[in-house]
């Protein structure tokens, strides 16, 4: 989500991916002599932040489960079924499954578009 835009959805997962790749990129920079302790500290802070966020999401799920009691399992099963057609029995799993599926779809579309544009420009089309 950016200022003026509404959701975190797959963008949140994408940014987690960017944070996940940071150490690898920094290793590459370090090999070229372009890294610094400050940059590593920044990466560590992002990893720490994401760890806290994931922990808090787990806690949120646990609190929901506790608050809803026996009703929760019924809701989870109904939710998972509605989301994925019984491919998973966990609502959290179903949400993650759908979000990852969307992200892969969007990224594939972006790279397909990129590929088509490159082929068209190679063939002289604009």
């Amino acid at each position, binding site marked *: *989500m950016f200022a003026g835009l*509404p959701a*975190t959805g*797959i*963008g949140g997962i994408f940014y987690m991916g*960017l944070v996940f790749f940071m150490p690898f990129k920094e290793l590459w920079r370090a090999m070229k002599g372009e890294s610094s302790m400050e940059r590593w500290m920044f990466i560590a802070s992002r990893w720490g932040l994401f760890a806290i966020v994931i922990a*808090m999401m787990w806690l*949120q799920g646990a609190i929901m489960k506790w608050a809803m009691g026996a009703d929760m399992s019924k809701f989870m099963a109904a939710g998972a079924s509605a989301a994925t057609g019984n491919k998973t029995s966990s609502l959290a799993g179903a949400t993650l499954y759908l979000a990852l599926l969307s992200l892969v779809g969007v990224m594939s579309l972006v790279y397909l578009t990129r590929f088509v544009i490159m082929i068209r420009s190679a063939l002289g089309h604009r």
Partner: protein
Amino acid sequence: MSTIESQSSSIGPKAPAQPASRSEKVRDGIRRSSQFVETIAEPAVRVGKEIKSMLLDPAPVKQTPRSVVAPSIRPGDKPRLLGGLTVLIPAYNEGKYVADTIRSVQRQSVHIDHVIVIDDCSTDNTGDIARACGKEIVVVRPPKNCGSKATALNYALDYVSTEYTLAIDADTTLADDAIEKLMPHFDQPKTAAVCGMVLPRFVSTMWERGRYIEYLYAFLFYKPIQDYYERPLIASGCFSAYKTDILRQLGGWNTRTVGEDMDLTWSVYRLGLSVRFSPEAMCYPVEPNNFHFMSKQLERWCAGFAQCIKVHWKDIVGTSVLRSMVATALWDAVVSVFALFILLPLLAIFVHPAFLLGYFLDLPTIVVPVLIYAAKRGEFFKALSSIPAFWVLRFVNTWFVTRAFWNEFIGKRSIKVFEKGH
């Protein structure tokens, strides 16, 4: 040698036509096949290089850095900026705030060469107030109202003679060290623009509180990650500095969209240059304090985003990391309408009421970073009490994004008129 050969071949006995043309055909066929294979393979090789650059080496800068901020020679003097800096302040009926803005520029810890206020034919006393702030303040007034911030800034760009140009909104004040923190990012020769950290000056109404959380989250959570990959999505128009020659090369601020700052940022990427974000360089704009002004601002922002995608989509697709950021933002913006307004209510009614909790599914991803950053700034309780307002603003954002995309892509009712957001 080749001339002799060609002459000898032209004067010598001619070979039988049939076998020669057959071998030529074969050679031609081979040449065409290899050209076709090269044509097909080249994009694949470029994609490979692109993926490698995205994962490993997005924007290495090999040129030698140089310091932009020079220390003061005499004690008591402010440090100077090598190449000089001109501050542009476009203002239309900003009599209420422009003096605060100018004073915050005058208080800067570095020397500012020129301050130009563009009084865009205001009907209030904006120009007089600006002139009263000091002899060093240059007030220019176009012959008629420019109609947009971009045109007003371009009008003043002709007067700029320094290496760097900084644009700030007339309702935005700067922290005393904001420019000093901002400018060192130009040490890297590849940097064409630098933007600062934005937080609302006033946080009292529901709309301001919602925006406060939104800025904390966007500027301190997402933007540093974007900056790490040297791809900030936008150098905010309310406080950004640019290399003047790059600005001129791009024709200044473009008026083809109502999101001139995003347009400029993406144009910079098209040149292969980078934009940086300085989280320590603080600025404080006045945010819309009621729905009327908020709706005008959101209408412009969302239309600007859609128009920039329309204008730049080919360049975006060719820019590593940025393409994925824009695609995911676009997906989230469009899908959120379906999720928030249709899917969740239907599931709550027909499957289970607990689906209403879906509205708070991403609560930790927003609340945790926001509260951590707010605590660092000593504003924990202010942030905590503002979080509900963010959820309201989010619904409003969703509505305006949907409307903007509908108007721009389906309804073909593109917004061309620049309306002030407050």
